[in-house]
């Protein structure tokens, strides 16, 4: 019996229920991952494994088939967002480095995996043809890196810097290299194996798939840019983008073009034709994409099927993972060295390229169709071995890939650098930005003394305290204005006479965002923060100091 035969199906649930279970399960997985301090994408995939073909089969083969269009939409969104990261100015600056690194890591993985897996197949079968064909195809597939899970980790940890930029660019580009290598490898394998489909035919098919996708993406991207220029609301913008992505994904499926490459080309068109305006589109789409992402990765896990495989295939799996990792790491180092890249890129970028996903699985399925005539043993075709190997290795590298990406950005000190002023404000309370050194006045201080204190300190407002130390009022420059020309009364008027009432509009533990909003509504520049029980003055909360602190924290977190 074929050891890779499918297991029986579980009862069929409605597709919407499955989507719901997937999204909620994924969120649970992400929560667990965060508790374990590992990237959330692993949690999504683990839940997928649990409820998918290798687990309880809540999502079975039939459901996966029904959800296929959803996968294409998810891939389109991912591709589009990745394209949005690829600005021409970055390529002008780093293009040579990216190309060198991509060739280094892609070819490194290709050669090592081809050599190792080909050798194992040769040892097992004793036949050169399946060994050469299998080695070449597995090598080509191994050069692809999964942009989705890599980028999910970068977003989860708000990474920013030269390593992050390089990583996004390389994972976005190496799919094209993988497909080219695949076309060459499969053509060569077909020639060696004497396939019915000619090598030229395969090369032509892949070229059409790649070039067609690029052309389609560029055309729709231009049209979308034209339409978005006329869109005046966020809702319409989102609708236009989703609509375009659905059309592109649908057209790609119908025309057998690569979805990711087409959507990526759309993203590239937008970010480069309207860099400022597009940032907003990508931000809007990213907010919408979250549940789509969750479901996509749950399905990645659910699709993996790890049935009983012969031991020698596990040997290929192990060597594939080792060879691919070593090839990517070593190739990156070499490419970065030759192109004189930043040390952070040279030393850590390779760690970020281990993830393998949709493109690899897709290519393995294509290979199983192209090479279905090569038999290894009776009843076991080379195509099946390739699918099984890629499935198992995808699972393994999806487990080691995301933590490696995290390790790379951690080593390069790029975690948490992609922050905005709103992010900083959201993380702070009033207590974090209020002035801690405080000079107070006493209620009975003569106005003459008040002027002396105010003029010799930079403080913008002064709390007035009673004999118990409680703050009963506040004196600001504004409240002293009316006294400048009335020096006659300075000798008998006291602080209590001129102070303004304290309104407890902010407290030390109040979120900074709320406090800033309150101050804006009241048109106030500063206010006293009092202890909630003793009413003792804790600090001055003044907008000027708060803004300075926010800017400082923002710059520190961005590593400027």
């Amino acid at each position, binding site marked *: 019996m074929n050891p890779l035969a499918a297991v029986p199906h579980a009862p069929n649930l409605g597709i919407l229920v499955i989507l719901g279970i997937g999204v909620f399960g994924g969120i649970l997985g992400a929560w667990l991952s965060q508790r374990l301090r590992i990237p959330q994408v692993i949690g999504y995939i683990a839940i997928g494994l649990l409820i998918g073909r290798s687990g309880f089969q809540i999502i079975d083969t039939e459901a996966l088939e029904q959800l296929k269009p959803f996968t294409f939409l998810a891939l389109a969104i991912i591709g589009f967002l990745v394209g949005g990261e690829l600005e021409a100015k970055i390529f002008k600056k780093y293009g040579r480095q990216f190309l060198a690194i991509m060739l280094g890591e892609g070819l490194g993985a290709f050669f090592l995996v081809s050599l190792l897996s080909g050798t194992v197949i040769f040892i097992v079968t004793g036949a050169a043809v399946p060994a050469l064909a299998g080695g070449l195809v597995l090598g080509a597939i191994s050069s692809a890196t999964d942009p989705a899970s890599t980028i999910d980790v970068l977003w989860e940890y708000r990474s920013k810097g030269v390593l992050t930029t390089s990583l996004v660019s390389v994972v976005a580009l190496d799919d094209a290299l993988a497909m080219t290598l695949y076309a060459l490898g499969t053509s060569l394998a077909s020639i060696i194996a004497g396939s019915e489909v000619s090598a030229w035919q395969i090369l032509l098919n892949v070229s059409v798939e790649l070039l067609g996708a690029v052309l389609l993406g560029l055309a729709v991207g231009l049209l979308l840019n034209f339409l978005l220029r006329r869109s005046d609301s966020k809702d319409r913008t989102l609708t236009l983008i989703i609509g375009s992505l659905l059309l592109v994904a649908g057209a790609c499926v119908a025309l057998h073009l690569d979805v990711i490459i087409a959507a990526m080309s759309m993203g590239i068109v937008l970010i480069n034709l309207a860099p400022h305006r597009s940032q907003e589109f990508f931000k809007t789409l990213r907010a919408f994409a979250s549940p789509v992402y969750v479901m996509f990765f749950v399905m990645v896990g659910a699709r993996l099927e790890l049935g009983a495989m012969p031991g020698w295939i596990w040997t290929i799996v192990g060597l594939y993972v080792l060879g691919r990792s070593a090839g990517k790491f070593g190739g990156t180092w070499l490419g970065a060295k030759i192109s004189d890249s930043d040390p952070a890129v040279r030393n850590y970028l390779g760690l970020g390229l281990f993830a393998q996903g949709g493109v690899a699985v897709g290519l393995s399925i294509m290979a199983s169709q192209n090479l279905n005539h090569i038999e290894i043993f009776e009843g076991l075709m080379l195509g099946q071995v390739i699918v099984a190997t890629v499935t198992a290795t995808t699972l393994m590298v999806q487990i080691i890939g995301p933590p490696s990406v995290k390790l790379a950005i951690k080593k390069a000190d790029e975690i948490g650098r992609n922050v905005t002023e709103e992010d900083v404000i959201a993380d702070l309370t009033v207590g974090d930005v209020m002035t801690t050194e405080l000079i107070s006045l006493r209620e009975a201080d003569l106005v003459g003394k008040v002027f002396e204190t105010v003029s010799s300190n930079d403080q913008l407002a002064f709390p007035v305290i009673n004999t118990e130390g409680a703050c009963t009022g506040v004196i600001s420059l504004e409240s002293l204005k009316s006294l400048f020309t009335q020096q*006659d*009364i300075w*000798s*008998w*008027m*006291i602080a*209590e*006479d001129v102070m*303004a*009432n304290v309104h407890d509009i902010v407290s030390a533990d109040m979120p900074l965002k709320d406090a800033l909003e309150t101050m804006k509504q009241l048109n106030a520049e500063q206010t006293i923060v009092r202890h909630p029980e003793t009413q003792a003055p804790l600090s001055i909360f003044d907008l000027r100091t708060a803004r300075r602190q926010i800017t400082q924290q923002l710059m520190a977190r961005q590593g400027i």
Partner: protein
Amino acid sequence: MRSPGQRLLNKALTPERVLITDAPSKEDLLYTLVGVLGKGKHVKDVEALRHAIAEREKLMSTGIGLGVAVPHARLAAVEDISIACALNRRILPDYESIDGGPVRLVFMVAARPDQQADYVRVLATFSQLVKSESNRDILLHAESSQALYDLLTDPQK
């Protein structure tokens, strides 16, 4: 042309709030003046005003010297600046003025907490009025409350 402080004074002081008194002590006189202000439409809580005036005196005496005192307070129980004035026939030896001397002429000012600028203008106006010895003498020798009112509201006369 009247100063802004003088205009405020004229608006906030009414003839019935100008008294010739014969109080034996500071406490008695302040009690009387608070009572007079309390009858006006702008003071909503006379006890709150009494308390605020007393608290202010505890912090520092409002006897500004030269026989004059300006007890004052800002509080929420007052809707608009209100002024009362008393010329006491007897000297008040217990006022603890900043010059240590006795007090006879007392201006009481009550205002809303946010009326700080107007409040300061009114207090400064009283300070100006009593600064010159001749003015002070005229005020201290006013024969009736109406005469005192006229002197305060039209000092150029």
